């Protein structure tokens, strides 16, 4: 249990997707002009991460990782399909994003109107793919740890994009040197926020 909470806190703060690994930067920069759209995209990212990362974990554990096929037939214990993981992960992500889009459209039209435009964007959001790849690299022990990790990194991404959107709304009123306006200052502010987030380093529960 402690381990699960620890993974969650680490994923939100010390190993924040945006500030520590720069994942999902494209949509982070493009959609962070107002808080409303930013939180819409943020929620969509949390949603998709929590579904795709555990699914990819199960696929990796029971099909792709070295020797994983032994449960099907003992003589397949020597096969190693892990080189296929990139293509499987991205296919799963693209398929699940499509599925989520259809389900949300039918089941919750209100939510679809808010999230809908962001869902196709998410298939190529590096944060989603990054979540699956980090899951593969870090070798979590069971599916609960993976769920806690994916929820944590989703919420970390949500926090980051809402925070930068709020700052950018305020920035509209400040007097920035002209060549630095827009993109340049956003990068520098993200860097400064990243330095602030580094102070969470070393927190253990």
């Amino acid at each position, binding site marked *: 249990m402690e381990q699960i909470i620890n993974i969650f806190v680490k994923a939100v703060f010390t190993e924040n997707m945006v*500030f520590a690994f720069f994942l999902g930067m*494209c949509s982070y920069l493009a959609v962070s002009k107002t808080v409303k759209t930013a939180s819409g995209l943020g929620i969509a990212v949390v949603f998709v991460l929590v579904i795709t990362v555990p699914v990819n974990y199960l696929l990796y554990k029971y099909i792709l990782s070295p020797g994983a096929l032994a449960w099907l037939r003992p003589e397949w214990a020597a096969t190693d399909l892990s080189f296929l993981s990139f293509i499987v992960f991205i296919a799963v992500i*693209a398929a699940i994003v499509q599925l989520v889009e259809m389900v949300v459209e039918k089941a919750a039209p209100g939510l679809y109107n808010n999230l809908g435009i962001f869902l196709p964007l998410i298939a*190529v959001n590096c944060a989603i793919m990054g979540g699956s790849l980090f899951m593969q690299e870090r070798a979590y022990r069971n599916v609960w740890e993976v769920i806690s990790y994916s929820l944590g990194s989703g919420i970390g991404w949500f926090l980051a994009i809402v925070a930068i959107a709020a700052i950018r709304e305020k920035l509209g009123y400040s007097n920035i040197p002209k*060549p630095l306006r827009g993109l340049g*200052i956003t990068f520098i502010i993200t860097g400064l926020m990243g330095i602030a987030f580094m102070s969470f380093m070393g927190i253990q529960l």
Partner: protein
Amino acid sequence: MNKRIFLDPLFKNNPVSVLVLGICSALAVTVKMEPALVMALSVTLVTGFSGLIMSLFRNTVPNRIRIIVQLIVVATLVIVVDQILKAFAYDVSKQLSVFVGLIITNCIIMGRIEAFALGNKPIPAFMDGIGNGLGYGMILVIVSFFRELLGSGTLLGYRIVPQSWYMGNGGFYENNGLMILPPMALIIVGLIIWIFNAGKEWSK
């Protein structure tokens, strides 16, 4: 014509500083120059060949499934790059860890396929891909140059700042530890964009 397609993305339409594409996956690899160079090369190859392949397929792939086809083509190329790196440059591939896989979701690749390769002949599409990959790699190499020089006092692993200058050896110099932290990459990119834009204003 081809020359312009090739050179434009380096300066005038640099994918990172002007079009804001593809910063996603790669800034985390800019602490040292060597992984940054390898990353730049890998991305250039993938953008070039994915442009070439998708341009060859542009009339045969139905519009509705083109995103999936693009993802599969790009993912296959990335797997090839990953296997080559694992075979010939194992240390660097360990340093790059997940970021090789993240080339798949690099927005430059999908962006250039959508914007250029699907509407043009294979050779220009290939040139466009290579040019954009290099434009992106250039930013990576510039960032890693400053981070390695100021953060570790070396370039490509060779010592630039002499040992005798360091505090520990009775000198006056100390490495800037801040440069090694991930957020500094963002700040340096911000400064590069500032300089690019200021240069544009100035030359008007």
